[in-house]
């Protein structure tokens, strides 16, 4: 295709000087756009599903030391990361004296959640999500699932975490 005919055929079609043509979206172009976008979404979610099937998440193995009991006051929290992983966790010293460990990522859009001392609630500031600090269950807001948790083991003066055992309901 010569430069001139390419200009006439394609350039003027893509960059029309008439306002009506520039703003006009034909039925065919709209259908193409819809097909591409929905096809892209389908392939994308297929890839996500394939990734989680072939490369499953590795669970926490063994016991991991977090901190000493004296390092974490009542109502206080301690964030930590398990070696070899990048997932942020937080350890909460509840007002009743027990300990809880949760992933610090909101299950809605992965914002960092924090414990509000004295309320028994974990708060996500992004979209006002609320979780129960005792169980990790959703109390309010958009999060779809409870916060993933770890089991806390207290040995003497030290606090360890292990993978959560199956919930007994």
């Amino acid at each position, binding site marked *: 295709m010569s430069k001139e005919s390419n200009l006439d055929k394609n350039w003027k079609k893509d*960059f029309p*000087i*008439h*306002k*009506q043509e*520039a*703003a*006009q979206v034909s039925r065919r172009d709209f259908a193409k756009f819809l097909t591409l976008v929905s096809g892209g979404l389908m392939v994308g979610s297929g890839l996500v599903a394939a990734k989680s099937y072939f490369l499953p998440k590795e669970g926490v193995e063994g016991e991991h030391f977090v901190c000493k009991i004296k390092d974490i006051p009542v109502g206080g929290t301690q964030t930590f990361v398990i070696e070899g992983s990048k997932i942020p966790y937080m350890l909460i010293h509840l007002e009743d004296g027990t300990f809880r460990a949760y992933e610090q990522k909101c299950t809605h859009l992965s914002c960092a959640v924090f414990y509000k001392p004295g309320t028994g609630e974990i708060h996500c500031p992004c979209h006002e999500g609320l979780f129960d600090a005792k169980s990790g269950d959703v109390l309010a807001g958009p999060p779809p699932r409870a916060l993933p948790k770890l089991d806390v083991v207290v040995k003497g003066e030290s606090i360890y975490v292990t993978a959560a055992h199956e919930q007994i309901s």
Partner: protein
Amino acid sequence: MSNYTTFNRNEEFFVDMQRCIGCKACEMACAECETNGQDSMIHVNYVERSTTIQTTVQVCMHCEDPVCANVCPADAISKDEFGIVHTANTERCIGCSNCVMACPFGVPKKIEEYDLMMKCTMCYDRTSIGKKPMCATVCPSGALFYGTKEQIKEMRPNSSPVNTFVFGKEVVNTKVNIMMPKGSTELIIY
């Protein structure tokens, strides 16, 4: 796409160069407007100042196939359904001056201060709500007239509006009319 403006399709622009007295009221009126940054988009030119006091006035002729828009590499100039060729879209104009060199009437001007081309839009902000262009409302001698074909015929019985211009082999048809001796159909520049 619908256009909800109240642009009057019956009214046209008529320029009668011989009636221009060079008072520059049109330039002053145009420069009152904030839409064009208080720069005048109409230009009064001296024909041959050493021998004559004749002046001419130049507004955008709003060509049917606007060469300024055709040469624009940034797609900044567009023409709407009323035939108005709009000034450069400020977000797209790259100040390359292709349009300045291409226009056979010398209408687009590159404003170096803004690095933008700016030109007459036939006061689109006024004409789109049914008003007349500012220059045509202030012209004291009738060199610039905005109205219907019937009105100009009654006012200038010995002139004909012409909107075909011949530049060598290039024939340009415009939306704006030039008043020529009665019976003329085209203006041959060379």
